[in-house]
């Protein structure tokens, strides 16, 4: 990747397309995990790629490009949150702290692209009830409160089911990656 970055820095702007192609799935996946409005994911992805391009000269090739890239992504996400909330609402400050804490504790996942290739296989393996919940929750972005009402269940029961489903998907992804 460093070679590609050097070429872009030397003026081969068209090569930036390759970098976008390589990192776009991971970036969109990162943002979609953190934003509820999926239209924003597209706008912010674009904004982040442009900001990264404009800062490429500042990148020190001694460091890992991917980590540097996702630090810019996190900063952009945080400044988006700041702009979104009103002056009296302090949620953005705590959202920012939470995102920073997650970044401190959990390393950026280098297997995100590989996982993307298997996620649909793992979803297809879920039992029917779990599949329905996953589709409502993640395809149509239905809230837990709404899911609980619609399925005549409780919020606790739905969130416990989601917890178990996530564990199943995580285990399935690990197996699929091992068998690649």
């Amino acid at each position, binding site marked *: 990747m460093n070679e590609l970055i050097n070429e872009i820095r030397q003026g081969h*702007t*068209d090569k*930036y*397309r390759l970098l*976008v*192609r390589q990192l*776009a*799935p991971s970036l*969109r*996946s*990162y*943002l*979609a*995990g*953190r934003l*509820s409005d*999926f239209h924003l*994911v*597209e706008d912010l*992805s*674009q904004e982040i*790629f*442009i900001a990264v*391009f404009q800062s490429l000269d500042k990148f020190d090739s001694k460091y890992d490009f991917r980590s540097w890239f996702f630090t810019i992504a996190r900063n952009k996400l945080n400044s988006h949150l*700041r*702009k979104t909330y009103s*002056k009296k609402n*302090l*949620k953005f*400050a*705590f*959202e*920012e*702290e*939470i995102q920073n*804490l*997650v970044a401190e*504790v*959990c390393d950026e996942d280098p297997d*995100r692209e590989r*996982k*993307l290739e298997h*996620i*649909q296989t793992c979803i297809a393996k879920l039992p029917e009830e779990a599949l329905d919940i*996953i589709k409502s929750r*993640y*395809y149509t972005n239905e*809230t*837990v*409160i709404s899911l609980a009402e619609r399925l005549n269940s409780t*919020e*606790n029961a*739905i*969130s*416990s089911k*989601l*917890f178990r489903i*996530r564990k199943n*998907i*995580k285990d399935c992804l690990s197996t699929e990656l091992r068998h690649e």
Partner: protein
Amino acid sequence: MNNQQKLTIEKYLDGELSEQELISFLEELRETPELVHELNLAMEIKGLIFTSQHPNFDTLEEEVLNHLDTDTSSMEDQIMAQIPESKTLKFPKWFKLAIAAQIILIPLLFFILSPIQSATTPAVLIGHVEKVGFDSFVLRGKEKVNIRKGDPLFSKDQIYVQNESSLGMKYLDGSTLKFSSQSFVRLTDIKGQKRVELFSGVLDADIAKQAPGKDMIITTEHSECEVIGTQFTLSSSNVSSLLDVSEGAVRYNKVKSDNSVMVEADHYASASPDESLELSKSTKPLYQSPIVTYFTPEKKVSIEVELHGARSLYLVVSNGGNHKLHDHSAWIDPKIIGPAGEISLTELPMKVAKAGYAEVEVNSGIYGGPLRVNGMDHPIGIAAHATSVVAWDIPPGYNTFTADGVILDSANQRNNPSHHESVQFEVYTSIPEKKLKRLLIRKR
């Protein structure tokens, strides 16, 4: 991972947590790495599923590349190309002079007038930061400002004190407020009347006499204090609020009700949604040690207390005024002695064991490390992060309590003099209800 934590993660992802709930969630995340990993997994899977459903990369590529291609100079050329060529008009000399005079005078007038205009809406300076731990910040409008000692504070500033940090501030009239770690507060000044909104955390106040009709108002989720001039501590969380007055008096009102009490020195009052406003007299300790710090010789105080036939024993370690920073303390070799003989309290079942942070540990240090003091390990003792309360029922035949109250080496592993670990050891024979209530507020 309990059901409540699982639900909180989902509600966080749905953006349905209130400010208070977000604070609690942040605190819980800080204390539970497992919860951080689960949140990360939830976000990861949500992101993976979305991206696999919307593999729309070509559009993004094109949009980014298009933007990079459109540089400013070409944009300028395009704009200039669209502007019709201006016609050359001839004006008389007097007209040109009048225009030139306007060009000079208008900016000049603007410069002269603008300081007067800006003076009508200045940020109101209310005081300064006197002391601050690491990483605390102020939200000023939408700006997040890291603060240092001596920095000014303005009306409408919102302060967030980080975990394991603290902040002290001084108003222009000399009144002081100290905020403990994880406090979240908004300061305002309305025509000379000070207002403080304590959303969570603990504040210690020493308030100078306020002007007539300008009582300082401090609010929490459950209560409102009217302060004329006094010393007190106010603790608040989403569960309840507790006011502890050490000097003077404070009018304490429960919000959304007519309940109101005057809390005087050595009294405290608590307010919560499900209980009425309670006024109580502070329980006096049977024994209170001097303040012990990391730099006290041997880092210890020897304690021997006559229990006067009491059947309960409560051992309390209070923070010595530094808001609990690294206050790793222990009761070394705690025992009760009397005609029935001698028995170590570590062998008796505890009826209360509450610590300000982490857990109460028996025969080991905080987080299970050694009970190490000045490099020496002790086999018997009870360790806890201040403020802590531990209690036992005393069997008949024992009438004296002895122990060494110590600061553990783990309090300051870098031997940093700026870490002012300080505690006080207290012994009670009746329930120190105020200390417990305050602990429960912090350990919600």
